[in-house]
């Protein structure tokens, strides 16, 4: 059997979601953002809510997400996406509203906004990409940077005396009564990706069941910031990030 016999429309089993635009993503080779974008696109497509979903992309590597997912988007100031999403969600209760934030955006400058949006139990989904670094600006330390981890602003490894401790923001948010579903996922293997997609699907469905804010952290890699190949980055993530940021559902009321 020739390859050309296999490659036929009727034999198609997997293709890029039509919700992903044709724009080439600016992300570095192997970056987890691209995988999470594809998952969100697939979830929105399967739920058939492209015309009722509004995304909020704050400053960070993923601010340009609005060039890749074919839905309506609001670009937000650094750290303020949960507030922008609150404004949209409160005035469009029928819409699916989600933010797509990095660790610097959510756990550093935007800590107050994410805390209070979750505390109010806004009916939104917060997608939080934790790669322990500021990617867009060239690899500086983030609140989730691990002790001893080398970054552009911790050239000798993060020192708790100087920079404090890595922040487990997701566990903090799970303490707030306003959050309903809080989970930590990863996208480094096919199995992890399938789990992450189910988690995202559940998060989106939850916002219509008045169960409070859905929060999906995705522990991801930043091969350029970590100065590793994508494969090495995945291994380093498993060995170093997962012990500090264990995967799995943290809260599910």
């Amino acid at each position, binding site marked *: 059997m020739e390859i050309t016999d296999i490659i036929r429309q009727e034999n198609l089993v997997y293709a890029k979601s039509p919700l992903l635009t044709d724009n080439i993503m600016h992300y570095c080779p192997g970056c987890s953002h691209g995988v999470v974008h594809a998952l969100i696109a697939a979830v929105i497509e399967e739920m058939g809510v492209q015309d009722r979903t509004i995304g909020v992309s704050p400053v960070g590597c993923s601010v340009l997400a609005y060039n890749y997912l074919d839905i*309506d988007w*609001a*670009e937000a100031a650094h750290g303020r996406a949960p*507030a922008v999403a609150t*404004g949209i969600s*409160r*005035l469009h209760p029928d819409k699916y509203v989600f933010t797509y934030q990095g660790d610097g955006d959510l756990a550093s400058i935007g800590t107050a906004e994410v805390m209070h949006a979750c505390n109010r139990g806004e009916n939104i989904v917060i997608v939080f990409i934790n790669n322990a670094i500021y990617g867009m600006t060239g690899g500086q330390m983030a609140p989730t940077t691990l002790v001893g981890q080398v970054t552009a602003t911790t050239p000798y490894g993060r020192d708790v005396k100087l920079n404090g401790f890595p922040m487990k923001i997701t566990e903090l948010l799970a303490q707030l009564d306003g959050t309903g579903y809080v989970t930590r996922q990863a996208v480094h293997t096919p199995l992890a990706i399938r789990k992450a997609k189910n988690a995202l699907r559940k998060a989106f469905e939850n916002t219509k069941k008045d169960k409070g804010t859905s929060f999906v952290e995705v522990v991801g890699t930043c091969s350029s910031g970590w100065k590793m190949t994508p494969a090495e980055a995945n291994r380093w993530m498993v060995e170093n990030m997962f012990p500090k940021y264990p995967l799995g559902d943290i809260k599910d009321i």
Partner: protein
Amino acid sequence: MKGNEVIAEAAIRCGCDGYFGYPITPQSEIMETLMLREPWKETGMVVLQAESEIAAINMVYGAASCGKKAMTSSSSPGISLKQEGLTYLAGAELPCLVVDVVRGGPGLGTIQPAQSDYFQATKGGGHGDYHLLVLAPASVQEMNDFVALGFELAFKYRNPVMILADGVIGQMMEKVQLAEPVPRWTDADIERLSGDWALTGKKERRQRHISTSLELDSYKQEIFNHKLQAKYRLMEANDARHEELSCADADYLFIAYGSSARICQKAVQLCREQGIKAGLLRPITLYPFPKAPVQAAGRRVKGILAVEMSAGQMVEDVRLAVNGVTPVEHFGRYGGVIPTPEEVVDALKKQIIGA
């Protein structure tokens, strides 16, 4: 009614969709009134107390990006916190209303009224070449009128509009004729009025909408800036507003806005009683500044006194407009102190007539 309460009432009646606020003296009554009135039961209007002024202005950004009538209010220090949000709103060409009840600064300052935020309001307190359209109410009636007018201008120019009041206007009580209630916009209204940009969910028949002020390509960003500047020229041409009292035969002119204008009305009366032909030109829009009428007055009078509860900020715009044709001086008490009409008359005599 009290100025601040009228803002709340006017917001409900003009079909405002969302108010996002934060407590700060001297304007907390606006949110208190809204919470008491519970407009969500009546019109469905959302009222939300945010965790900070920064969060509040970003909630306004979210609501405005949906083509809805969104507003916030604060006082000087809070408005300083909102500057980044305001320049994002201007950069994304999003209409909204921001009420600033000014208090004495700088820093924590005082809770007494002042007008020392003129620069911040009219020259743009945030980064980049942008302006807010700034309306300066001088009465509780104008506090009512400028809410509906503010939203109208905001959507006309797709630009944030600021109501620059001060503690006096916000806290004082006066008779007021409230506007007739207007229903909130339906989704169909928004589709008709703002369908080409509002975030309403990407339909089959249209491209996705993106509310953003980000443009990495500097040539495109320059073109966008030209577009903004053209918008401001339009504002100057069509919506610069002012009022003139006893100016026709005036030898001397007071130029003042807001509560200072009220004080100058009395000063004009006192001058006239002493045989000094004085008049008052009151800017109603601080941006766009009423250049033409000030220019014209400059050619007619022997001298102009700009009266502001600040160290002199609007006076610069007056000088720019007058361009040296006649002397322009500034008089003001600041730090929250309110001048008396008599002081204003003395200042005119000393700084202009006697000079």
